[in-house]
């Protein structure tokens, strides 16, 4: 279980460019559930998602993982935690240009003490399910936005992480692919995985276990399914 307590993030504090991206955010994410963060653009969803994923250090507040306060744990510990437990799907997709779709999926695995090619079959299965098999050898800059989003999905899921953090995962994809993504998230929950999604998509909200609505950096509503 992941919990946040009064989680706050202020960018450029004490300067004229100061931005309070999140303030006193308290949320709870149970294992094996789908949790949705919804709200308008600039409401702080991405910032909260980044802090939960331990890729952004909060200005104040605490992040508890299974009851343990990991907020000020070392950079090294956080990296290992992400390596072993978290799969990210970014709003801006964030694929590495100059590499093929398959290389983009395999690069995150290089830090494991394993032969990355062992994951190739699993990646191909996911590519097939997301109907992008014929594009695995293409450079990512040759792919459409929707195709890139699907590559990012494969990259996040290929390692079978315990926690999936997805930031607007269906924003670039077509109806059919969006439906597959929902299905996959449902399956992941059924397998006991934890899925946290920042989204506007009402269809995804329907399958959520808990929904937090954010406005101006704070949680204004919490709904349980």
């Amino acid at each position, binding site marked *: 279980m992941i919990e946040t307590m009064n989680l706050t993030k202020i960018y450029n504090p004490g300067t004229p460019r100061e931005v309070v991206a999140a303030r006193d955010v308290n949320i709870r994410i149970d294992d094996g559930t789908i949790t949705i963060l919804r709200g308008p653009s600039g409401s702080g969803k991405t910032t909260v998602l*980044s802090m939960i*994923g331990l*890729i*952004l*250090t909060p200005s104040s507040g605490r992040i508890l993982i299974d009851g343990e306060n990991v907020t000020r744990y070392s*950079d*090294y510990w956080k*990296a*290992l*935690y*992400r*390596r*072993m437990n*978290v799969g*990210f799907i970014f709003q*801006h997709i*964030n694929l*590495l*240009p*100059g*590499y093929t779709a398959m*290389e983009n999926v395999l*690069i*995150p*695995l*290089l*830090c*494991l*003490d*394993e*032969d*990355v090619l062992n994951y190739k079959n699993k990646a191909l299965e996911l590519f097939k399910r997301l109907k992008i098999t014929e594009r695995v050898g293409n450079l990512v800059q040759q792919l459409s936005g929707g195709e890139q989003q699907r590559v990012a999905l494969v990259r996040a899921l290929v390692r079978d992480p315990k926690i999936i953090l997805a930031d607007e995962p269906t924003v670039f994809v077509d109806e059919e692919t969006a439906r597959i993504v929902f299905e996959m998230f449902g399956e992941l929950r059924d397998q006991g995985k934890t899925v946290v999604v920042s989204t506007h998509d009402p269809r995804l909200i329907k399958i959520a276990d808990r929904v937090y609505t954010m406005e101006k950096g704070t949680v204004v509503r919490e709904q349980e399914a």
Partner: protein
Amino acid sequence: MLKRHRNFFHYALDCLKKYKTRTFVVLIAFTIAISMLSSILFLKDGLEREAELSVSLAPDITVSYLQGGRVLLLPSSYIDKASEIKGVVRALPRIWGYDGKGLNTYTVRGLDLSGVEVDYGFSNLVKKGRFLVPEDAGTGSIVIGELLAGVLKVDVGDTMILLSESIEANRFTVVGIFSSETTIYTADLIVMPIDDARKFFKIPEGYVTDMIIYTDPEVPVDNVAAELSTMPNARVLTKDILLRGYKAAYGGRGGFLVTFWVILLSAVALVCFSQATIVGRESMFEVGLLKTFGFTTLDIIEIRLIESLILGVFSASLGMVIGIVYDIWFKAGIFAQSLLGWAFLPAEFHMPVYVSFPSVFSLYAVTVLPLLFATTVPAWLNAITDPELAMRRAAA
């Protein structure tokens, strides 16, 4: 653990291919700088080695005559006096000098061949023919350097005429040719019996150019030298002093050139740093993303270290090969004259090149270390930033 490092190695190779422009600029810049620097260092090492070889053939002590700070002819009576000093096994007269013009510049050395059991270390250096024997006295027999033989187009058995300073023709017969092992020492050398040299230079009887001393190995050379120094007007040079003189000459000239090229190399390192900054935005994004996936700061630095090592070792190795080729095939062009300074170099002269371990080590160090610094520091700065912030800044 090994698989992870192997993965990083492959990724580093991919990065080198991916950032083609940076790789190319760094490779070219370092290769050029290292090729020039290695050319100088290998040449300097070669000259110092030549000096050591030359000095190893030299007598234990050389004594010349100084008056008013100028070297004059040494009275032959000094030889008898020197022979009486404890520790002196043999004191021999020598007449030598320079002559010739243009391509025919040479060093003439006249040796006392009576009692030639002391062969001055020359017999091992003869490549063709033989060294002089006592019976050669007065016959015009000479042994000459291989380079000079090439320039004058003479071989063993040939007769040649040398014009002396007083423009008198002197006829000589070549009985031997020195090998080119000690290029600088023997390249332009003509060895002849001392009386022939006396006649050639018109040195009056009772005088010689200097004398050479062979000492008893059980008596310290410095003690003998100190005793010889008590002779009036004597300038005493031991092997060690000669070697230090040679090394100071080549080392000093080489040092000047090395300093120049090290400064240039620093400029190259700055180019690398700026190249690292040019790709900094992309690299910052990449580092942030890799950290998101669970790469640690150390992992990132390891990847950049591998990249720098591959690039540094490759460019340094390539630069050294080019440096050696430049020294051997192109005779070190612009550096040769600067290093040798005093020497006239005919086209046939082969620069002595010696690839020493300390120089190779230094060359790798001056390439790899700045490169490691120029590429890993920006990577480290990115790696210690929150991954999300690094990606956000890169995208801004």
